[in-house]
């Protein structure tokens, strides 16, 4: 686990390691699931949250994603982008969840507060909340994916089914909006 922490702190999730874990999972090794979960849960949760916009559903999808990974690990074919495979599962589950709901729910303040153990300094939490509110759908998804999953823009484009220039444009717009928000917050 120390190693995992080291790699996580290095800021990037090594695709080779993830790939390896999925393959081990396919042989029935459950420890691999624990490691995989630890490594990728932030990306899965963050991405899911950016689609469903409420924490209760995102938590459900978090669980369902790993169950699906566990059951489909056998059919995983290594193509050099395991993160994309995992997040495609997350995306599909999230979109299905949305279709189930007859009314889309915005991220209300009290729901956000209800999120389990929030250890982040409150400024970071406010930034995340701002990201949920002031960014558009795609801007939110692109920026969270880029911040959490280690995927490159081109992979994000493939995952979200957008053109690469669109992703780059949304990414920069999102950063611009967030920077503006932060400058406003600082001034207060």
């Amino acid at each position, binding site marked *: 686990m120390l190693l995992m922490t080291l790699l996580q702190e290095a800021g990037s999730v090594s695709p080779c390691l993830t790939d390896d874990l999925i393959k081990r999972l396919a042989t029935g090794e459950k420890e691999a699931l624990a490691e995989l979960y630890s490594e990728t849960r932030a990306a899965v*949760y*963050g991405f899911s949250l950016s689609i469903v916009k409420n924490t209760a559903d995102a938590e459900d999808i978090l*669980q369902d994603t790993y*169950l699906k990974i566990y059951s489909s690990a056998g059919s995983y074919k290594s193509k050099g982008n395991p993160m994309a495979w995992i997040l495609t599962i997350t995306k599909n589950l999230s979109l299905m969840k949305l279709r189930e709901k007859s*009314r889309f*729910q915005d991220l209300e303040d009290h729901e956000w507060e209800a999120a*389990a153990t929030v250890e982040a300094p409150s400024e970071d939490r406010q930034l995340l909340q701002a990201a949920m509110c002031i960014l558009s759908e795609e801007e939110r998804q692109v920026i969270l994916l880029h911040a959490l999953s280690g995927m490159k823009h081109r992979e994000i484009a493939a995952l979200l089914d957008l053109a690469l220039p669109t992703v780059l444009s949304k990414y920069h717009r999102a950063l611009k909006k967030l920077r503006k928000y932060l400058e406003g917050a600082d001034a207060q």
Partner: protein
Amino acid sequence: MTDREIEQRLKQAVEASVPDVLESVMARCDDQKGQVIKMPKKKNIFMKVAAIAASLALVLGISLFAFSYFGTESVATVVTLDVNPSIELKLDKNARVLEANALNDDAARVLSGMELKDTDLATATNAIIGSLLKNGYLHELANAILISVEDEDSVRGAQLQERLSREVDDLLSAASLNAAVLSQYVTHDVEALSNEYEISHGKAALIEQLLTANPSYSFEALAGLSVQELSLLMDNPKNEVKSVSTTGTASDSAYIGKDKAKAIAFEAAGIVEADVFDLDVDFDYEQGILVYEVDFDCGRSEYEYDINAVSGEIVHSRVEEESNYNGNAGNSNESTGSNTGTVPVQPDTATDIGEEKAKSIAFAHAGTTEAEVTRLYVHTEYDDGRLEYHVDFHIGTTEYEYEISAATGNILDYDMDTNDDDYDDIYDDDGRGSEMQPSSSADPATQISEEEAKRIALAHAGIAEADASGLRVTSEYDDGRLEYQVDFRVGSTEYEYEILAANGSILDYDKDTDD
């Protein structure tokens, strides 16, 4: 706050709030499989040890650059050649080629049909340069090549670097090409950067050096430039990069040239070259394009123009006049240049419109009056030595922000935000506006096209399409509604509009003047 820092904070926030569902997942996995498969104890330990060993090897690989990279092959040196095509040569200790790899599509074209394995470096270099010339990657207008050498043995590496530079230089002279040959010895690990931006080690190392010299650039932006363009940037004295040696100069014939850039700048300023002093013209990279930066002083004013190196369009301009600050009849004024950051003791009332006027300008532009607004907030700010009024207010749920020059009353910047995201659910009675699917009330008859969205935006800004540059229209669904985003630039001012497709109403607009 850098982009990376913003992303890092988002990441931290999510990581801290992810609920821990592992136990629940594991339990459900057991249910799924029906039975927990118990591995015999011996095997368990073996697999655990194997896993740890594999992970340790990975750590070693990351930290001991030389070992993991050069590995078990007898690779002694790695040379990369970058123009636009990016070619990597792995050499053994006798400078024979073990492997030749194309790092991008252009390079694949250059290397196709060539068998370079087991040849000596001189032969391989000859073949590659020949192919670059033949395939048109090196010519009068694109004539800069970067040679990067990585070697565990620094002495051998330095020797190879020198030798290669000379050889390439000779080859290009023989082809009557005046080229810039840049060479560097790469001493540290740029693997991560190289992978993230999908460029060679050599280019990553070069860009890293450029960024150290000039942190205002971004890695992302520079990664897309050719070696030619990077070389031109390095000519700018403020971007001095000592670790790269250059022979020759990169051609700038693809661009309008320094003389033309100067002429454009002087014309815009309405002065002649004879009257200026401290003139400087250099390449720079601003707002995603290569520009000529023309700086000069005239009288008691400082001028700065950024001119698109290809089109000659003035991308950004700034004029700083000292004459505004004559409050304390010019005695012990310390700053010799412009008064950036100096706060005048007595604001000159002739050049300050006052808070009331600033407010009325803002209200007039927004089509409202002070009585109708809420949450009014007015404050002043100095920007580049200029006094500005910032007028912020709300009308209903729409937020307005204005930046107004205190001296002239010009609106420098304005922003309008309908804030639908925050208030939609609270004020929305029928629930239709907040569905994810397109709203069923979208009337195809009133839905506007991209063309119309563009026209609406331009009309609101009071700009003719011919005067707008970088005009772009994209569309996306936001909260279940189709919206158009229209972006364009006029000189140094950027406009952004968000327009509802259903009826053409403007949801959000932003005007940003670069000062």
